[in-house]
């Protein structure tokens, strides 16, 4: 009887150990991935091991590589779509671009399509925010990242991300070129479009968080415009903002723009006093 118990215990330990060893990321997997092994089966095993280890940062890249090895019709279905939704977080991921580019060809249910669009929208927002925060740390005046490719594919894609996100990227790109007039043009669309200038209607929390992230990015861009604009441009901005405030009131995002408007009004007054 005693022998049987010891045998069962021994077997259990072996099974647990082997299962554990199977799932854990090995040095060999790391080294093979680093050497460029992109074999589909190897990547799948590596992903499972990374998930068990909870190495989510590396998962962004490995899942991105794995999904791109799959034929397009398999790439964003079932677990693959779930992996994309959960682990792909960087806008430079190939799958991120792939989804935007091939939006029309995707076979997604309406619910899935909505979720993917929201994710893409959030990824754009957070990337702009993170780059902006890095810029703040470096105390630089110009944005450190060029979004030309993203801007181009977004223009061609029918993916239903928010207009605000598109405008933010457009304004960012003008900023990179020191194009104050271009930034003012984008601002006109941003505050003129009632959907963009108003708040999200989903719930209170997403409103404040979205407004906060956007506020940092837009606030920094508008601060640049504030510093660089001449009297005519300043007057133009005031006209745009006054019109938008009259149309939408000082609620939601408009409150953020209205505060910016006050700075332009002050600058205009200073310029008229000959202080600038």
């Amino acid at each position, binding site marked *: 009887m005693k022998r049987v118990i010891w045998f069962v215990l021994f077997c259990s330990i072996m099974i647990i150990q082997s299962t554990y060893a199977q799932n854990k990321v090995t040095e060999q997997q790391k080294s093979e991935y680093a050497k460029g092994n992109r074999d589909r089966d190897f990547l799948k095993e590596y992903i499972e091991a990374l998930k068990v280890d909870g190495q989510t940062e590396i998962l962004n890249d490995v899942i991105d590589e794995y999904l791109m090895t799959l034929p397009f019709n398999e790439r964003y279905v079932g677990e693959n779509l779930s992996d994309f939704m959960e682990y792909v977080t960087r806008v430079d991921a190939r799958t991120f671009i792939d989804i935007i580019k091939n939006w029309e060809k995707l076979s997604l249910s309406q619910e899935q399509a909505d979720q993917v669009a929201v994710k893409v929208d959030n990824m754009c927002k957070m990337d702009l925010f993170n780059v902006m925060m890095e810029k703040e740390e470096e105390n630089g005046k110009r944005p450190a990242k060029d979004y030309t490719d993203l801007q181009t594919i977004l223009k061609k894609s029918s993916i239903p991300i928010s207009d605000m996100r598109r405008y933010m990227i457009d304004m960012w790109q003008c900023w990179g070129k020191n194009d104050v007039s271009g930034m003012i043009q984008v601002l006109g669309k941003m505050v003129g479009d009632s959907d963009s200038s108003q708040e999200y209607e989903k719930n209170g929390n997403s409103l404040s968080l979205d407004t906060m992230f956007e506020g940092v990015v837009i606030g920094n861009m508008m*601060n640049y415009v*504030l510093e660089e604009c001449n009297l005519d441009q300043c007057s133009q901005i005031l006209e745009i903002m006054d019109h938008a405030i009259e149309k939408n009131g000082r609620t939601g995002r408009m409150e953020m723009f209205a505060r910016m408007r*006050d*700075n332009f009004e*002050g600058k205009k*007054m200073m310029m008229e006093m000959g202080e600038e």
Partner: protein
Amino acid sequence: MKLTGIVFLLFISLSGIAQQPESLKDSVIKKWENIQLPEKGAVRTILAEREEIARYLKMNDAPAEVFQENGAQAIHRIADLCKKVGEELQLKPSVIKKVLKGVDLSTKEFLACTNLGLVIEDYYGLKAVAEGAPVGEAWGSMWFNTTVETIGNEYDYSRYRQILELNNPELSLAYLSCLKSVFRYNGYTKGLDELRPLFEKNMPEGELKDEINKLYESYAHLKEGNVAPAFTLKDFRGKEHSLADYKGKVLVVDVWATWCGGCIAKLPKYMEMSEKYKDRDDIEFITISIDDKGVYNSWKYALPRLKLMGMTNLLASEGECTFQEDYNITGIPRYFLIDKEGKIVSVYAPTPGKDFETLINRTLKNSND
């Protein structure tokens, strides 16, 4: 037998013997809540009610705590009436003494009164009226300083003094934690300075005393008559301005920020006040903003919008200078008045208005004498 038991229970409940002190106290409070005062003879009604309730309590052999509550309730009602009607109530000192009689702040039972802080303030407010204080001042002015005043009056300090003089440790502990707010909103005032020896002597040892003593120490450098902490700050043109530059002039400072709605609301009053002294060359009005460096533009461009371009406006961002620490800026708006010698008259001056102007005029007069 059954009938005897029912009669006994009925007797107990009717006589009130079965009532616990807590429920007796509750019924006293309820009784006072339900009293409707006539327009004429309200004071007389309050006194009569108090007497009637006291008789009832005596009959029920109520504990001292409930008698104190009854007295406190009467004081509170008379005080309310007094504050509402004002001087026209023409309360005679003898009547007030009658109201205050029997309420003994030196007892343990008094400490059990509901809304103890308010009762204490009403007690001393009425006492001050009986001693001839105007009704508008008798309750002090500490507690509304963030919107109306920034200095208390002598009646506030008189209240603290009288409480300490009673030498009732529990009362001191229950009420005097308010001294922390006095420091926070009023700084190291003359009143607090005069109170210190008595505070040292009669305040019971412990955490609260240590905490208030620490405040005495950390605010000491901002006492009236001390040299104001030096500062060198920049205006929007980048020009540096030091406190020393204003030597020979009385300096008035408005400490504000663009995010502070209260500060902005009071700026026109401050400007209005400065206008009254515009022809004098022995006084200067300036503003110092504590906005962060990151919102420099918001500050700079707020200046013309808020019509502040006519005076010197300086920025004292946190991390860029020690101004905020040096002057214990824990809330704004704050107003400073610094004399011609660079000494503090007040770094917790009243909000722009009559009181502030009186203080400015007195400072100007003293400097010129």
